[in-house]
């Protein structure tokens, strides 16, 4: 009766409703605490919306009440997989403001350690990306290689992850005596390790099927989203801060910038493998060129940069990591703004996920290699 009538009238407006699915924030493959809301039509993703902020620690605000030495510990914890690259960006900003001339040897130490950290970060990506695509073995290989680097870090800085090693105007300590010997041994081992990793995963049929042509993004669109680093380079844009705006001593090294063509997940993966090889070559050149000398410019114990502002860009493993520093002349900065590459790269996921299969969502998210500590700050 009444029911029949309503059923009949409903018939005209009967249409499929998109299903809403929450991926995260506790999902293990979101690489931290990150929520992705997906609207699904069957197995296809119609719309995706990233929700961030679960790891917000207020680092930028904290910077306003800590002095310059203490802030370095905060920058350790932004990108917690590539700590030294974060420290370097902040110290460079403060140095630019103070007009400091950093000694050569300090720059060599910084470059070697930062490139090692890039390899460590990419090795972690390599292992975790294997897991994301359903392969169990790569993480064991990736962590084995990363462990070698981390052990060297422990010998140099005293800590495996939160180093607090780079200082405004130089570095904290000189390298230990046996460093050159150890780093040469390490580069040999890593060279073998990278080839092994490459053989294990790159051309595996299953891996290709999961990643080739998945989550493509073209160069101009990636640019529009503000992507940098491997995500942008995979789409065919040759852009690397180390080359386009060389900082420190990067103009003294010869290295290539790997560039992809399809902008799909496989390209993003393979660019990182190739980058590890380039970083190794930078390390080898740096160790050869390095000469003894001072490691710290003359800085007062409590740094007080003059009034003004500075903006520096560095190339972290995830892209263009930039720091904007405003000082009012005191011992604490007036404002610190971090341009986090993961944050910008993450926005492009809305584009990549459109019309993708739900099974590929994790593969695409993994290929961006986000660090939530840096996204949320």
């Amino acid at each position, binding site marked *: 009766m009444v029911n029949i009538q309503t059923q009949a009238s409903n018939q005209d407006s009967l249409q499929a409703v998109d299903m809403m699915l929450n991926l995260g924030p506790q999902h293990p493959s979101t690489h931290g605490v990150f929520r992705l809301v997906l609207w699904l039509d069957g197995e296809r993703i119609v719309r995706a919306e990233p929700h961030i902020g679960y790891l917000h620690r207020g680092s930028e605000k904290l910077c306003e009440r800590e002095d310059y*030495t203490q802030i370095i510990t905060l920058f350790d914890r932004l990108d917690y997989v590539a700590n030294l690259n974060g420290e370097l960006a902040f110290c460079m900003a403060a140095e630019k403001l103070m007009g400091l001339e950093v000694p050569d040897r300090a720059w060599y130490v910084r470059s070697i350690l930062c490139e090692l950290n890039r390899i460590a970060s990419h090795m972690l990506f390599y292992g975790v990306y294997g897991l994301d695509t359903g392969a169990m073995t790569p993480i064991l290989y990736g962590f084995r290689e990363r462990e070698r680097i981390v052990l060297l870090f422990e*010998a140099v*800085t005293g800590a495996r992850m939160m180093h607090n090693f780079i200082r405004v105007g130089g570095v904290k300590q000189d390298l230990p005596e046996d460093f050159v010997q150890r780093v040469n041994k390490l580069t040999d081992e890593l060279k073998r390790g990278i080839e092994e990793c490459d053989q294990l995963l790159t051309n595996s049929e299953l891996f290709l099927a999961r990643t080739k042509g998945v989550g493509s993004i073209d160069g101009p669109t990636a640019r529009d989203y503000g992507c940098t680093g491997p995500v942008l380079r995979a789409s065919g844009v040759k852009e690397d801060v180390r080359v386009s705006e060389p900082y420190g001593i990067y103009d003294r090294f010869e290295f290539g910038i790997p560039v992809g063509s399809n902008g799909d997940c496989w390209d993003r993966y393979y660019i990182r493998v190739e980058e590890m090889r380039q970083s190794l070559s930078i390390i080898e050149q740096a160790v050869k060129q390095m000469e003894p000398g001072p490691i710290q410019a003359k800085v007062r*114990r409590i740094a007080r940069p003059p009034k003004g502002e500075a903006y520096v860009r560095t190339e972290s493993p995830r892209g263009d990591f930039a720091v904007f520093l405003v000082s009012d002349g005191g011992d604490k900065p007036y404002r610190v703004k971090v341009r986090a590459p993961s944050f910008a790269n993450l926005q492009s996921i809305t584009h990549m996920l459109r019309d993708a299969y739900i099974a590929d969502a994790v593969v695409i998210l993994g290929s961006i290699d986000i660090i939530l500590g840096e996204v949320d700050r």
Partner: protein
Amino acid sequence: MLGNLKGLLLTLKVMRREPVTAQYPDPSKRLPIDKRFMGFPALLWDNSNDEPFCTGCMVCVRACPTQCMSAEMKDNPKFADGTSRRRKIIEKFEINLSRCILCGICVDVCNFDAIEMSHEHELSKFERNGARAALPQLLAMGKKYQAETTWQPKQPEKNLGKPPEKPATAPQPEKVGGVVTS
């Protein structure tokens, strides 16, 4: 076929290998600790004068980014009877080790060579407040660190507490007409 055999051979080889994992608290299986390893901060003991180096000046307390330390100073009784150069000495010191981020800033700022990152790194405790290390525990950690390593103060002439040997009464310069000759 050949590939399968190769894979099988590798499996067999790995099967016969000794395990590389070890039960955790086994002291013989501990990983070696590097010389520069930064564990918890510890207070050092001045063996030359049998008292701690720390004067309780609070510089480290103010520089600590997590505000996990507190210190209190007192007049050094040994200074009063002339057996020490330290005017003040530490009375109470506490570091909340579970709050410390092992950054090493306290070591950098200390002017008296009194604090050092020891090799202590285990944090599991039975009580809720067990990780709040007070002065005796910090000094014990420091003594252990000094025994294990070849730690030496960076500025011994300034920071060792032993008073300088007084030269036996020096001959007084003769006074000639109010002008001192020496």
